[in-house]
């Protein structure tokens, strides 16, 4: 009996010491909720081989069918290191970027007046992709501006002016 208790004590001490060590080394954090800062995941290093789509055209699928367009990878000004953002067109007043993970386009208006710059950007968008207005309306396109340019319109999707669903008219 005495032997059993001594061995048991030693085992318990070892387990307690192990558990304490685990806690002190930051194993699990049971109450580590909103007040704590999470561990940042590793950043994509961009070292993975990247093969852009080849050919003169490419097709992007939409709920209303595929849209065939110019392969803008051939004429892109810049591809981000993680290969997700492709800069299609950039001027001093707007830029057009494609975001590959969800096949969305982003037209950023970087100067006023919106009506004029949006019209220029839309024309450049159609020209760069070589598509019609009807096809453009099938795509996922966000048209917006930043809070630095205009706090009132920042965060609003102005949409493509010629599409029924995106005909927000800035005033």
């Amino acid at each position, binding site marked *: 009996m005495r032997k059993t208790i001594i061995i048991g004590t030693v085992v318990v001490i070892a387990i307690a010491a192990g558990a304490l060590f685990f806690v002190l080394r930051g194993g699990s954090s049971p109450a580590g909720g909103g007040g704590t800062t999470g561990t940042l995941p590793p950043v994509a290093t961009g070292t993975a081989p990247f093969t852009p789509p080849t050919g003169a055209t490419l097709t992007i699928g939409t709920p209303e069918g595929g849209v065939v367009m110019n392969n803008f990878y051939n004429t892109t000004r810049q591809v981000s290191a993680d290969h997700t953002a492709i800069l299609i067109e950039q001027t001093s007043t707007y830029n057009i970027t494609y975001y590959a993970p969800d096949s969305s386009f982003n037209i950023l208006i970087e100067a006023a007046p919106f009506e004029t710059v949006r019209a220029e950007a839309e024309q450049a968008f159609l020209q760069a992709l070589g598509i019609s207005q009807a096809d453009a309306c099938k795509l996922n396109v966000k048209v917006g501006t930043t809070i630095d340019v205009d706090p009132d319109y920042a965060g609003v*999707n102005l949409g493509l002016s010629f599409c029924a669903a995106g005909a927000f008219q800035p005033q």
Partner: protein
Amino acid sequence: MNQAAITIGTNLPGGIPLSAGPCGWIVNFYYFALLAAGILAFGAIVYGGLKYATSAGNASRQSEGRSWIWSALIGILLLAGAYLILYTINPGLTSCSLPLLSALPQGAVNGIGGGNGSSTTGGGSGTGGRCQAPSSGPCSTAQLQGSCMGSNNAQKAGGVCNVESSGNPNAQGDKCDDGNYASIGLFQINLSANTISDPTTGQTLNCPSAFSNRYTGSNPHCTVTNQSLYQQCLAAAKNPTTNITEACLLSKSGTNWSLWGPATRKACGS
């Protein structure tokens, strides 16, 4: 008068980092109680074991030793059990987070227009929304949930990202005197004030050293003095993954947006 910078004990014994805020205090207290109770239980078991081992057949001392050991074991079980019971009932009970208050859309207050539009136009088509995460692109909640912002803060982070850049990774703002821009990318990271990690090499780029001085609201005058370094910083900040990671660091994983401009804080809150 010169003052030396002193860092006051920032961690609990054992290297457990201290957290700030009400939730942080609870977490800190829990860790401290866990540490103290663990040490006490350990000491009680050792004491009880020694007492039993040296009882020399004395029944009273043996009983006392056993009692010490059992009491310590029950203490440890209670300590671990508190967490296990709460976690079994609802895992959310073991996670402390304060509710976030976001600004109401203007239309919802004054009843004018479509609700999601700008305050000056009183609405619009409702296709966007002030400080709301967009439905697609790198600022969408779906994309940010998988980032270091986490599921709790992804929505607000998406709103900040949306007003800062409209979700465009190539957005540029805060123009210096020489035509170069200081604030870049999804969260408009101010390169004249912050270092950034180079996504191709993993090295930290000392971007502020590429500028003559820091671009601020009160001193919006700067020039780029190291064009080569600036271009590296520019490419890094335009990389969506890098920009989100940097915003994570600066906003403490999306919980504190006080470093962003007053217009953004007004629209989205700190």
